[in-house]
């Protein structure tokens, strides 16, 4: 054992950056070493990754700007003239 092996709870705070690929190599290695021996943390990492993916996927399906909201915006800004021929 060379480096300090983080405990399950100590690792939590680094997982978000780990998944974004922003963690330094040494910490990544420590996390991966822990993961190779800890089923629980593998589940935590997998579900954290999936949480992020789910939000990305659902965000893509969020409603577009409703046409009437855009119309009211252009009216409020006195820009109706520009709305008509841009549509």
């Amino acid at each position, binding site marked *: 054992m060379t480096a300090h092996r983080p405990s399950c709870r100590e690792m939590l705070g680094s997982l978000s950056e780990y998944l974004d690929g922003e963690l330094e190599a040494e910490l990544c290695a420590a996390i991966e070493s822990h993961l190779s021996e800890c089923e629980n943390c593998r589940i*935590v990492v997998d579900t954290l990754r999936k949480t992020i993916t789910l939000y990305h996927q659902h965000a893509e399906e969020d409603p577009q700007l409703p046409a009437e909201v855009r119309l009211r915006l252009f009216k*409020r800004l006195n820009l109706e003239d520009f709305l008509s021929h841009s549509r």
Partner: protein
Amino acid sequence: MTNKVDPPLSIEALRRGDRAEFARLVELYDAYIYRLALRILGNPQDAEDVLQETFIKALKHLPSFDGRSSLSTWLYRIATNEALMLLRKEKGGMISLDEPNPNDDEEQEPIQIVDWCCLPEEMLMNAETKKVLDQAIAQLSPALRVVVVLRDLQGLSTRETSQILKISEESVKTRLSRARLQLRQWLSEYFHQQYGLENLAS
């Protein structure tokens, strides 16, 4: 969507109050701003108010836009501040946007260990799950919510998010981490209850 490439916005024209150019700016960004506000506030009427206030403020302050950040970052910043101001008003001035201290309760909360990754796609992508995702976002403190909205829902970078919120990139990462972990906890509890998956919480 047209195929022709529109010329880039002229900051010069915007600064001197060119109305056609301002209309182009609005048309380019109104959908992004609306979704941002809706995601922070969770309510279409409030989102529309923020949308209108954002462009009214932009129109007023464009002559002094210094170009140090991009126009989109600048607009996002106005919109985020408007949304947070509205939240603060609704909560009676009680919300804090400072770096939240991780409180002991949260730190000691058992870590939910529910393996819901392999649930079929139709369970993860249905309207019911979408509602749960939205409710979870709404339950986050405003300081965490804005960060996860900008990063994971609007798809902005850590750097852009830090410029919009005027906080360090380290703070963005810390808040994003706390927000994502909290969301994962809530989703794990939900999937555990909804589908009877085993919970190895420790």
